[in-house]
């Protein structure tokens, strides 16, 4: 609940007093309807996606989550390989994005370089977030994979084709980086200068201050940033499907092809022929919906804690 200042309280009283001022009930209701419509769409979406998953849920139940056998030919649908791929690529992405994102956030909040240089750099990091996913995919296929292939082949003992779980995770980390970096930066910026100065005055070096004072102070917010990044990584579709190899199985190595929920929806949705096939896809989609929902709620909680702490 937002805290109202005394001024705000006073004027909101004036706003709600009947008879003192002519209220405008039509507009009042219009904005309320708009707000309800937004929630309505969300609820509608949940119902449609959940509802269309029912046939698959009835058929497979929880077995869907433990079965990795996806065989449209014999109406056997198990979603484990997609869930695995979704979570695995997201985790690989975060493994890279968290240290690098934090490193950038720290670099941009400390005074290594003058403000005039840091502002354009931070701007450029944010631009990374504006590049459409499909352009990342295009770049991934024609630039990133050919460059990485020798390394991937060496790491995998020659069996990697360049397309696979690891490649997708790497591309994802680039896409998720700006989220982690910019939110962490906001968090670090909002830590009172006095805290930092006190630590320095006590004889800590810059980096000791960062690790022992700044980051602990901003933990909630930084965790929130990471979780938000995770949410984004879980839902990415285009770039992933263009580099992951699209193989519905649990890969035997991190360099082997895999599949994610978002990618299989993009590839198979338009042409799912059987009733059960379509419903299983909806089921997988519903799982993704629920996973990202939970992750985003978690992020909310962490980020909210920061603003509450501030008050």
């Amino acid at each position: 609940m937002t805290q109202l200042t005394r001024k705000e309280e006073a004027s909101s009283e004036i706003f709600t007093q009947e008879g003192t001022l002519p209220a405008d009930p039509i507009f009042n209701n219009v904005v309320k309807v708009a707000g309800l419509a937004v929630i309505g769409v969300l609820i509608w979406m949940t119902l449609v996606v959940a509802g269309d998953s029912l046939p698959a849920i009835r058929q497979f139940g929880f077995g869907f989550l433990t079965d990795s056998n996806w065989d449209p030919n014999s109406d056997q649908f198990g979603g484990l390989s997609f869930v695995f791929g979704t979570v695995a690529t997201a985790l690989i992405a975060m493994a890279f994005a968290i240290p690098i994102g934090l490193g950038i956030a720290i670099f941009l909040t400390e005074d290594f370089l003058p403000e005039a240089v840091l502002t354009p750099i931070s701007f450029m990091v944010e631009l990374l977030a504006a590049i459409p996913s499909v352009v990342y995919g295009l770049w991934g296929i024609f630039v990133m994979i050919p460059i990485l292939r020798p390394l991937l082949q060496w790491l995998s003992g020659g069996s990697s084709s360049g397309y696979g779980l690891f490649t997708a995770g790497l591309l994802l980390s680039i896409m998720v980086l700006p989220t982690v970096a910019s939110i962490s930066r906001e968090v670090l910026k909002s830590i009172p200068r006095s805290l930092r100065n006190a630590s320095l005055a006590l004889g800590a070096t810059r980096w000791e201050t960062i690790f022992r004072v700044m980051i602990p102070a901003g933990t909630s917010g930084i965790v929130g940033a990471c979780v938000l990044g995770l949410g984004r990584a879980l839902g990415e579709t285009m770039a992933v499907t263009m580099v992951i190899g699209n193989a519905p199985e649990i890969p035997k190595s991190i360099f082997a092809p895999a599949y994610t929920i978002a990618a299989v929806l993009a590839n198979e949705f338009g042409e799912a022929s059987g009733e059960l096939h379509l419903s299983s896809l909806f089921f997988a989609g519903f799982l993704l919906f629920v996973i990202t929902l939970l992750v985003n709620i978690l992020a909310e909680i962490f980020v909210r804690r920061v603003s509450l702490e501030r008050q």
Partner: protein
Amino acid sequence: MQTQKWTRRAFATLVALIAIASPIALQAANALDLNGAGATFPEPLYTKWFYEYNKKNPDVKINYQAIGSGGGINQITKKTVDFGASDAAMTDEELAKAPGKILMLPMTSGAVAVTYNVGGVPSGLKLDRETLAGIYRGRITKWNDPKIAKTNPDVKLPNQSISVVRRADGSGTTFIFTNHLSAISPEWKRDVGSGKSVKWPVGLGAKGNDGVAAQVQQTPGSIGYIESAYASQNKLPIATLQNLEGKFVAPSIEGVTAALEGTKFPENLRVFIADPDGPKSYPIVGLTWLLVYEKMDDKAKADGLKKFLDWALTDGQKYAPPLEYAPLPASLLKQVKQSVAQVQ
């Protein structure tokens, strides 16, 4: 007033934007938009057809979404398109799910080529039946495997892993390919089987014939199956495969025509040739069908579509050979035209 100025400006911009956005196409009274979706196998030919037909008949615009045979069947069954396209003719089960009788009209036929990307290995690599099945089954994993070397004594094969490429979407090309693999390899038939989508033992998934061609192009050491037009148009190496009689044949119009020779076509025009006989036959061939409801909901669309189909089966057939598709045998053409006449 500030607000008024803003409102007027916003309105003016909006009008300007709408004006730019729509070259207001002066639609003739008899303009017709037809939507189709399906196979990527015949896509090079179909897009040529729709393009040429539109040039001759500017009022008729046929839009085609190449989403794979599975998608084509799915959408025509749901009636979200006016016609579907598939290289895997609908099964009785699939036909039963449709809300009306669907006519399956073969339009052309083609070969499924096996293409690869191996440094130093030119086009014409000979793969015998056992080897082909073995590669896709995951049993043969290196290019310098003795089985491949046996049929290619003069080729220097590198010690490189084979990256198998197959389709990620529901595909008629997959159906034709796996049908053949099932016919030549009892192990394949038992473990994997045939269909528009199968449980692939190995492989990277790509979307559409074009996607598989691109994936092979991009991935050193890869092998993939694509409609032969995609291989020849993009100058990709093509393997020569062993047919039922043991002869090694490269995909060609002659090879397809030889494979189709002597095939009897039942009334519903559904025929699959899993393993053709004849020394000159190319082993992996298939027909491709357009799927149309016998009774269409919209008379104008039905008439328009019929006109197009008649054109495709007569004038249209001449566009096939330059694109590596084999024109349909005359007897079959006659049967198809009779079916088209039933559309209303």
